[in-house]
Every structure is written in C-alpha cells, then in structure tokens.
C-alpha cells in the first residue's frame, strides 16, 4: 500500500460503510411472523392426525391369501350343492319339513301341469 492509499484508506472505508448502509431496508416482518405461526400450527395438526391414523389403522392380512381362501370356500359350497341336487340326497331333508307344513310338492306340480294344459286348449 503506497502513501496515497494509506491516506485515502480511512475516508474510503467510511464512504463504503455509508454506501453499504444504503442497501434496501427490510420489509416489515409481522406478516411473515403470522404466516410462520400458521404453518407451525398446521405442521402440528398434521403430525397429530398422522399419529391417530396410524394408531387406528387395522392390520390387514395378505390380500392374495384372502382371495384364494374365499374362492375355495365358494367353489366347495357350489360343488356340494350340485352333488346334493343331482343325487337326491337332500330330497328327504326338503320333503320332511314340507310334509309337516301340509304342502304336497307332487300335487302342486300336477295342479300346475293341468292348469297349463287348460290354457293351451284355450289358445
């Protein structure tokens, strides 16, 4: 630093300090404070909601296993139904309560058949 620089150093530094003081002033931070408070409250609410959701979330089985189990049960009941109907194994089970109730399946069938014949004759 030469002698001229030394002489001008202090005024130049003071001038620079004054210039730096001219930088744009800060905006009012009260609105920003409000926004931060709201964001903090929201962050707290969402954190609480997340905890509740997790606490009440039901434990699920593996969905793939559930589908296979349900399908197997439905298939088994279908086969039992077809076998029971085809073999007549369930007829005794069905006719017994109908007899007790005073209903005659065979008689009803003949009645409907004769009704049908009369209608055919009319046509």
């Amino acid at each position, binding site marked *: 630093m030469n002698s001229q620089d030394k002489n001008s150093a202090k*005024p*130049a*530094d003071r*001038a*620079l*300090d*004054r*210039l*730096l003081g*001219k*930088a*744009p002033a*800060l*905006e009012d*931070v009260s609105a*920003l*404070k409000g*926004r*931060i*408070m709201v*964001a*903090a*409250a929201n*962050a*707290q609410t969402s954190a609480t909601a997340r905890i509740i959701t997790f606490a009440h979330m039901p434990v699920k089985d593996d969905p793939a296993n559930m589908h296979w189990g349900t399908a197997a049960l439905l298939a088994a009941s279908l086969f039992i139904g077809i076998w029971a109907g085809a073999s007549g194994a369930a007829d005794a089970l069905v006719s017994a309560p109908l007899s007790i109730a005073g209903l005659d399946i065979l008689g009803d069938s003949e009645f409907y058949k004769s009704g049908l014949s009369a209608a055919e004759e009319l046509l």
Partner: protein
Amino acid sequence: MSDAELLHAIGRSDMAAFGVLLDRYLEHVQMLARRMLGDAGEAEDLAQEVFLKIWKNPDRWQPGRAQFKTWLSRVAANACIDNLRRKKPDELEGEDEPVDPAPGPYDETLNSQLAKRVEAALQNLPARQRLAITLCHYQGYSNKEGANIMQTSSEAIESLLSRARRSLKAMLADDMKALLHDK
C-alpha cells in the same frame, strides 16, 4: 425467559413461546437471508423454513456448544448457501471479477437507485464474501463470532472481508467518488 427456556417450551408445542422466539430472532434471520439471497420473497421462504425446522426439532440446539443466536445464524447461513448452490452451482467456488452494476434509468429517486446499486454490488460478491460482510457489517458480529458462525478461522474471515470490501469499492467506485467529493 431465556432462549433455553423458550426452546424447552417449544419442545412441548408451546405456540406462545414460539411467538416470542420469532419476535426475538425473525428479523435477524430475515436480514441475513435478504442480504444473502437478494430477493425479499426467497428470504421470507428461507426464514420460514429455518423457523419451522426449529419448531419441529427444538432439541437440535445444544446449549453448551454455542449461544442460540450464533447457532441460529449458522443454520440460516447454511440454508442460504444451500439455496445459492441449488440456484447457481458455480457461484460458491467462483472468484471471478464481479460484473459492474451499472446504474439504471433515473426515473426513480436517487436513494432508491443507489440502494439498488449497493444491492447489486452485494449480490455480485462470491457467496462466502457476501456472508462475511452480512455477518460482520450488517449483523454486527465480531470477526471471531463471524468466523465461528462460518466455521472458519479468524484469519480466513478477515481475508474474506478484505476481498469483499475491495470488490465493493471497485463496483461502487462512482458512488464512492461522489460521496467523497460531497464531503
């Protein structure tokens, strides 16, 4: 209420304590971000981000290691550096000659024009020089405190300040001359 007590209360989700903390330090963080980023909107976003981190994790500050204000300034400064790195990856390493912030059209008041030129000159400094000037000139930290916040040595921050002031004098030469002439 001390800073430690405030942070303890914030740990219990005490909104009133958080409000007191904002009253105490929001302007400080906002000023740092404004000088570093050069944009009021971005500075507000950054200040919000910093304080929300404190709200969520108040125990991140360890009282025995640094004063809260020093720690907060470091958190804000690091957030500013990260922000600048995302925006302009080259700026942090670059020590290029700064661009001359040419005066704009004289359709506004002289003070407003001067403020813009000073702002532009600050923004043309490399990020670490700008941070050193922000901490030690605008925020009133000593060189030692500034070095602590920037996690560097006192010699390094003195060097940063010296280079920053030299660059600023060059960039604002015309205004400096006018100021010295008026005197």
